[in-house]
């Protein structure tokens, strides 16, 4: 039974723990034992992308210390998984004590849905969800983790769910971490283009594998007055119901 360290991600921990529990359910259904180390905070990407190398290095080292005992590290995010897989070896390449350990951890770090399909051999999930859904590929899932088919494979196995493809699935939604705060109007234009693409498909719900993109798109749709239900794909795959992002309703955590 593979022992999986769940890299919860800072956004899931703070904003939407239901995604973390959905991930745990999916991993356990796939036969993994799951632990979520208590001392984890963030992958350090905000520092790394802002040019703050010192803090990025320190955080990377502590994540490695915390997770290297697991068979696999799995994150419900292509972006955070990409940080572990693609960037930690780069960040720590000149660190004699950590360079090799960073490479080893990188090789065992996965985005949730691709882990379920590639490593656990999951071909379908036992869930049902009525509705027309568009899937948003995050740039890091696509281009850092090469995750493309797996979310579609899993989502298409959900009973009642109909998947719609965006006309331009490869283009960024404009989140980009601190980019969306530093250049809000460019980010807004990119979000609007993505939301227009989603609504043009006829989908009622947008799902994706990265909470950053999804909070940005849900927040923009809400501000712009576009009715769009936004959820993390893991919630749909695990059948975790409850209000969509930024919406009220029964099944709230509290």
């Amino acid at each position, binding site marked *: 039974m593979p022992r999986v360290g769940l890299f919860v991600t800072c956004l899931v921990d703070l904003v939407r723990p239901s995604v973390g529990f959905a991930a745990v359910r999916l991993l356990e259904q796939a036969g993994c034992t799951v632990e979520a180390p208590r001392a984890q*905070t963030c992958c350090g990407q905000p520092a790394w992308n802002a040019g703050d190398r010192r803090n990025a290095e320190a955080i990377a080292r502590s994540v490695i210390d915390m997770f290297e005992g697991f068979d696999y590290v799995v994150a419900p995010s292509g972006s955070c998984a990409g940080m572990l897989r693609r960037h930690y070896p780069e960040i720590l390449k000149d660190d004699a004590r950590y360079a090799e350990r960073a490479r080893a951890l990188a090789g065992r770090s996965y985005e949730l849905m691709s882990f379920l399909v590639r490593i656990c051999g999951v071909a379908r999930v036992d869930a049902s969800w009525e509705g027309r859904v568009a899937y948003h590929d995050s740039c890091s899932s696509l*281009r850092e983790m090469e995750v493309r088919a797996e979310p579609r494979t899993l989502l298409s196995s959900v009973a009642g769910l109909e998947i719609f493809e965006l006309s331009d699935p490869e283009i960024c939604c404009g989140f*980009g971490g601190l980019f969306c705060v530093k250049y809000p109007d460019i980010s807004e234009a990119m979000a609007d283009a993505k939301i227009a693409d989603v609504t043009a498909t006829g989908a009622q719900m947008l799902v994706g594998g990265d909470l950053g993109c999804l909070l940005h798109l849900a927040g923009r749709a809400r501000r712009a007055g576009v009715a769009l239900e936004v959820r993390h794909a893991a919630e749909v795959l695990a059948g975790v119901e409850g209000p969509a992002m*930024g*919406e*009220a309703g029964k099944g709230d955590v509290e």
Partner: protein
Amino acid sequence: MIPDPTAFRQAAHEALDDPRLKVALGRLKTHFVQKRADAFERYGDFAALRDAGATIRDCALSNLDTLLEKFERNVTARGGHVHWARDAGEARQIVLDILRSADAKTVTKGKSMVTEEIGLNGFLEKNGIRPVETDLGEYIIQLRHEPPSHIIAPAFHLNKEDVAQTFRSAHTELPPERALDERSALVAEARVMLRRQFEAADAGITGANFLAAAEGAAVIVTNEGNGDLTRLLPRTHIVVTGLEKIVADMDDVSVLLRLLTRSATGQDITSYVSVVSGPGDAQDGPKNFHVVLLDNGRTALLGGETGEVLRCIRCAACLNHCPIYNSIGGHAYGATYPGPIGAALNPGLLGLAQAHHHPNASTFCGRCAEVCPVKIPLPSIMRYWREKEFEAHMAPKAMVFGLSLWAFAARHPALYRLGARVLARVLRVIGGRKRAIHSLPVLRGWFVARDFPAPQGKTFQEMWRAR
């Protein structure tokens, strides 16, 4: 319009508010992105070709000195002249001196980004020489007194109605009632007007896509034929280009050509590929052949952490695939080289104080690096510039302060857990019954255009412990 990269934020804002620009930029996908994808689909093994291209460029850059000297010897042997320009000012003066010695009054120009980089046209005009751009796009923007907005399609920001308007105000000698609704009519008019200029020109200036050291040749790719008319009709031809364009020989050029034309316009080959060397003992063609090799900060990047940016073959695929460029176009960058290549190159050429916005205005989506025909790691180079900015304490103070608070917490898990628990509750309360937060006194940029979906109220970690 005076290009100013430090005014990026405001310029981007204005670009986003321009509905005509949005229409023009909407054509990038069909005009460039799709054609490029189709071209490499037809070709087959893009990965192997770009490996070869990157290797060729790397080899050339690591032998830059010997290749350039070889190039100079071979050009000189065929009766041409090679000039070395350390910076823009030297390059402009060299060109002016050549033109004066040729007694040139009118000079035709093929498309050249390097002459944009050195501000050649304005300098020549000040010195009584009339430069005439002959590439259709360049001709249009010259009439409009605008800089190019795209590396290979300088007037891409314009729609055909804009061009018709421009021609009506510039070509006042033509009948005002003429029809200019069709693209073909615009092209025909430009052809007539430009033909007169070709006949009147005393010298021609072009850029070069590649320099082949072994043959002492400059290689120029064009689609309109204007490059050949520019370089062949006058007695004097001046090539102005960056010294990093050198490669070993025409075999290397042929590999890079396959990458360039497919990446740029989705063509298997352009209409014209001109191979230009010195006059030799040819009976026709220009008698005076000059090559001006510009450094202007390039050799300072060589071998450094951003040196891979010098591999660039200026195909503009990174611009066409960039979501930022697709949103704001090229003028907002306020620099000769916009888009991802500009974001990686400009801080090196112009300095971080001037170009700091460019590497920051990226989501690191990675599409530029994915399509780059010579495998330049563009996002990594942008991140390097952000690091330099951070180290030099040039990054925005509020961001650095917020980041240091966050990082301190992220490095102290117990504090972080407590902070997250409090924050989850506070934000939940602020979100109210609508579960959405409209503004906060921090991260104000978020709330310019978005609400923030309220947290569910407890952190994952506290719920996990309670499980």
